[in-house]
């Protein structure tokens, strides 16, 4: 990477550092791990920079961040570590307790609606299955279009739409009579 290349990279990527951190933080639910995920993602993005073909730099970076976060989550699951946030609140005050990432194979929303206190929206969001949570975070907090969310998460737009639907249904409580969401349009 030349000096000019490094400057290109910084100009392209650093404006999206907040988005990168916000996504990592919502995915791994751990302040320390989120920063590690972002740093690793930046280095990875730097290595991939030669293959960046233009387009939305934010979506490009967020895809790398997201994949890194998934790697970190599975590593944490394997090693049986739990988040430090469960015992030590972060520096920024009131932390949501780290809620473990439920196995996507379960039917988590249904169980969630019954046991989760939905009055705390941030807690409910943090307790969503990670593949639903990421869609909602990318749309509501980052204002990404369906198309960009599909790019970041690597699933078809139809799946993005049904995941957003499921996420919102879980957050607003069970809606009676709703059919199975996933797979309907995917």
């Amino acid at each position, binding site marked *: 990477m030349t000096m000019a290349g490094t400057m290109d990279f*910084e100009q392209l990527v650093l404006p999206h550092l907040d988005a990168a951190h916000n996504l990592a933080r*919502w995915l791994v639910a751990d302040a320390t791990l989120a920063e590690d995920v972002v740093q690793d993602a930046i280095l990875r993005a730097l290595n991939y920079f030669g293959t960046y*073909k233009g387009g*939305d730099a934010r979506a490009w970076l967020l895809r790398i961040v997201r994949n890194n976060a998934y790697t970190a989550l599975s590593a944490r699951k394997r090693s049986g570590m739990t988040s430090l946030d469960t015992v030590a609140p972060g520096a920024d005050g009131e932390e949501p307790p780290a809620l473990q990432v439920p196995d996507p194979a379960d039917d988590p929303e249904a169980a969630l609606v019954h046991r989760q206190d939905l009055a705390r929206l941030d807690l409910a969001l943090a307790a969503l299955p990670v593949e639903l949570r990421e869609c909602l975070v990318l749309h509501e*907090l980052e204002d990404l279009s369906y198309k960009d969310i599909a790019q970041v998460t690597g699933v*078809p737009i139809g799946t993005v739409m049904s995941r*957003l639907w499921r996420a*919102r249904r879980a957050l607003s409580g069970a809606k009676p009579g709703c059919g199975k969401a996933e797979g309907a*349009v995917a």
Partner: protein
Amino acid sequence: MSDDPCFELRLLIQADVDGELAPAEAARVGAHVETCPACAALQAQLVALAGRICREVPYHPASDALRDAVRARIAAASAAAQPEQSAQVVPLPRPARQFGGQRAAGKFRLPGWNFSALAPFGTGFALAACIALVLVLPRGNGLPDSVVADHIRALQPGHLMDVVSTDQHTVKPWFDGRLDYAPPVKDLKTQGFPLAGGRLDYLADRPIAALIYQRRQHLIDLYVWPDGGHLDHGPTEGARSGYNFVRWSHDGMTFWAVSDLDAKELADFVRLWQAA
């Protein structure tokens, strides 16, 4: 498919609240919501939830410490990589120019009420929409440039297919009367490259047939036209702007396969097609 007949309508209302509908579709959703209390309630609920998320869910910006650490790591990595030209970085051609900014290709438009029609080709549209549409191709080797440029142009929503069919016996006759030759049409569904449709195109100064095949989320354009006894001495394979192409001739026809598939899978496709 969903066992809930209202599901697709709900997704449309959601798409409307999310600002993903074209004005005409949004107007139709709006007209329906005015007459349907259940849908009006759903719309209100979605709007209220969006407001609550906006107010109640914290955003986690990067700390100054993280920003500094990232800058330092970039600087360290670039210093370590001097001198330039480590063999590891793949020197893909970068577009000389691109329309920068977010959502460069414009918002994804849902094709009206015919929502289920989206499903089989959702991946294709997603792919098409994800591509930076404006690429200035390198000069020289005119035909590969033209073919790849056409492939990219075709990926734009609404340009991909003139006849949508997975049946080769539908696609092949469709070209009758539109071309002065009959392109061979084969389906490779059992080999993992299902036929998705066909398109009339204009390349090499003549109207030609383009067949569209799918491979997972990738699309392959196969261009076919008579070579007229003229032998092309250009490259038989290569890459332009990240798209791979393979060219061959058979029975007086010239074939070009173009895709963002990796070179190996595209070669597999070509081999299977030739053998079919």
